[in-house]
């Protein structure tokens, strides 16, 4: 029952994901980090088929890093998201494709703007102000419709995220109890405690 959320605010993006590693009906552990830091100003939350998710996330991580080493600057969030989407779309059309859903959030240092991209395993990509993957989306999207503010401060953004998490805890049959939350803004990437 994976859940991941992301929302933009004034000059930042918050990305949150549950930390449960489950197999069948068993919780294997509850402290797995499902948000990769791809570059100094880029975050990616991944969910989907276990194994595929980590394999694909590491593939993306290494390639984004390679671009940065070769060119001395990192890809912009939109360029990185476009490359990731294309990788997934090409994978989908191969013999064995990755079943991975992603939320890519980043801060574009050239324009000083935050960007958030929603990508699914079919290679769909849209830029959004807030979004979710997994069962959490059934509960959180209406809340975010109501409470999301693109000019909100970080504290207000985290409060909105808290509402989403609380709603999932209240209504989802088997809800995750722990989340990891990361923020990206002009100063880079950092983890925050809710």
């Amino acid at each position, binding site marked *: 029952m994976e859940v991941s959320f992301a929302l933009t605010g004034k000059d930042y993006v918050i990305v949150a994901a549950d930390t449960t590693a489950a197999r069948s009906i068993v919780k294997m552990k509850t402290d797995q980090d499902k948000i990769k830091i791809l570059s100094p100003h880029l975050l990616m939350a991944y969910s989907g088929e276990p194994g595929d998710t980590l394999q694909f996330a590491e593939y993306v991580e290494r390639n984004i890093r390679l671009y940065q080493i070769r*060119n001395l*600057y990192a*890809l*912009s969030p939109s*360029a990185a998201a*476009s*490359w990731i989407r*294309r990788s997934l779309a090409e994978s989908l059309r191969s013999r064995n494709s990755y079943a991975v859903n992603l939320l890519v959030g980043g801060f574009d240092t050239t*324009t000083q703007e935050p960007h958030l991209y929603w990508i699914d395993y079919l290679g769909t990509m849209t830029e959004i102000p807030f979004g979710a993957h997994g069962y959490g989306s059934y509960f959180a999207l209406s809340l975010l419709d109501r409470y999301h503010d693109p000019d909100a401060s970080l504290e207000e953004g985290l409060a909105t995220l808290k509402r989403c998490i609380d709603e999932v805890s209240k209504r989802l049959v088997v809800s995750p109890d722990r989340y990891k939350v990361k923020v990206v803004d002009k100063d880079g990437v950092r983890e925050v405690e809710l």
Partner: protein
Amino acid sequence: MARRYDSRTTIFSPEGRLYQIEYAMEAISHAGTVIGVLATDGVVLAAEKKVTGKLLDLSSSKEGGYGGSGEKIFLLNANVIGGVAGLTADANSLVNYARTAAQRHLLSYNEDIPVELLAQRLCDLKQGYTQFGGLRPFGVSLLYAGYDPHYQFQLYHSDPSGNYSGWKATCIGANIGTAQSLLKQEYKDDITVKEAISLVLKTMSKTMDSPTLGSEKLEFAVLMLDPKTKQPRAKIYKPAEIDALLLAEGLMKKDEDTEMKGV
């Protein structure tokens, strides 16, 4: 003696030189001059056309197309103009390669290719011909005038060996010694496009063989930011626009003005 090391591109001479590469550079030093100047709000390119003559059919470049006669200055991508000096046929092949590389980047990343990356792509290709035997290197130097969000306006130069470098003002082709010293004297770090246009045309008029400048001997292009969209916009001048520019800069001879009326 030297002949022994001439015939293969990839064999070092005892002095540690690659003769074919040096000959390729020599070929470029006879080609029409291309001058590039980097300004604070844009980049300016000008090129001397060598293929001229009364009977040459220039009608296709007068109207239609994106400007330029297809001899010296090309649009490589929405954000990069290329100026070439050397073997025109080789240059056409490289221009085609550059455009393909730029579109490949667009397909992968959904953004215009960064200028330096495009220069690198071409240099990777050019370097290959200095190392893998049997083939002649490209007899072409290029100037890349471009814009990207990482480093704003940029001007690069690449040569047949696959070396490239960034410049504030530079030139390739014939008479580059004269042009370069003129540019060094006149260039200021806070130069604007308007001043850069004058500088380029002035330098060009002093390096070209013929004393008069005119659209039949000149190609001209400017890359600036669109004031509304803030996106780079390349303008490659059409012959009539070049004549108008030369007239405004006072670089056109009086007797050519009579020709202008016919245009």
